[in-house]
C-alpha cells in the first residue's frame, strides 16, 4: 500500500477541526447559560443558588476552558474571514494560524488570574 493515502492535512485541517469542536462546545454551553439566566424570572434566591455552581472551583476551571474555546473560535474565525475576503488570505493562512495561536497564548496567560481569582482566593487565599 502506498504511503500517505490517509488525508492528514496540516495547520489548515487541524484549525478546521479545532474550530468545529470549540463551536459545538460553546453552542451547548449557550443553551445551559440561557436556561440558568432565565431563573432571574423565578426568584433571586433560585438564580443565586444556581450561580453559586459557577463559583465552585472545578466549574471555575471549566469557565477558564470556556474562555479558551471562545478565544480560539473568535481569533480563528477572524482568520477564516481573512482567508475568504482578503486577496492574500489563502497565501498567508498558515502564518495567520500561528499568529492566532500566539495571541491566544498571550490572552490565556493574561486571563489566568482574573478568571480564576475567585478560586485562587477562596481555596488558596488566607
Amino acid at each position, binding site marked *: 500500500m502506498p504511503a500517505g493515502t490517509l488525508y492528514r492535512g496540516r495547520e489548515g485541517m487541524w484549525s478546521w477541526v479545532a474550530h*468545529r469542536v470549540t*463551536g*459545538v462546545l*460553546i*453552542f451547548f454551553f*449557550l*443553551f445551559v447559560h*440561557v*436556561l440558568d*439566566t*432565565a431563573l*432571574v*424570572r423565578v*426568584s*433571586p434566591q433560585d*438564580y*443565586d443558588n444556581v*450561580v453559586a455552581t*459557577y*463559583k465552585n472551583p472545578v466549574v*471555575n476551571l471549566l*469557565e477558564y476552558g470556556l*474562555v479558551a474555546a*471562545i*478565544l480560539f473560535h*473568535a481569533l480563528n*474565525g*477572524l482568520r*477564516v*474571514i481573512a482567508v*475568504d*475576503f482578503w486577496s492574500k488570505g489563502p497565501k498567508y493562512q498558515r502564518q495567520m494560524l500561528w499568529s492566532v495561536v500566539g495571541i491566544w497564548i498571550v490572552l490565556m496567560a493574561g*486571563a489566568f488570574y*482574573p*478568571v*480564576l*481569582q*475567585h478560586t485562587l*482566593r477562596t481555596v488558596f487565599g488566607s
Partner: protein
Amino acid sequence: MSAETSTPSDAVELTSTSAGTYSPDNPAPVIEPPRARTSRSPKKVSRTNFEMWAWLFMRLSGIVLVVLVLGHLIIQLVLDGGVSKIGFAFVAGRWASPFWQLWDLGMLWLAMLHGANGLRTVINDYAERDTTRFWLKTLLYTATVFTVFLGTLVIFTFDPNIQ
C-alpha cells in the same frame, strides 16, 4: 517508452482496454461529469441562494459576536473580582440600562443563530441517513427557537423587584 521495459514488478497491471486501444468499436467508458444530475441526485433543485446567505451570515455575525461576547466575558469573568460578584443584584444593575439589555439581546440572537447554523452544517456533514438528519435538525430548530424566545422574554420582562 514501452510498458514492458519500464514497469516495476509491483506496478498495477494494465488491462487490455487501457488507453491507446480505444476505437469506435471499443469506446472508452463514460464517466459522468462531476456535477451532472443522476438518478441518485436529490429531486428538488434549490432556486434560492440560501447557502450563500448562510455563509455570509456566519462571517458578519461572527465579527459582531467577537465584540459582543468578548465584552461580555470581560465584564462577567475578568473585571471586579471575576465570577465572585455575579448574582441577582448584579444582573438587576446591568439590565437597568437599555444599552446592556440591547447588548444581551443582540448577543443572544446572533449567537443562537450562528451556533444553530454551525450545528446544521455539522449535522449535514456527519448524519447520512435522511431520517437521522430530519430528526436531528428538528431537535436543533426546536431547541433554538425555544431558547431564543425564552431568553428574549427574560430580557424584556425582567423585574428587579420580583418577590
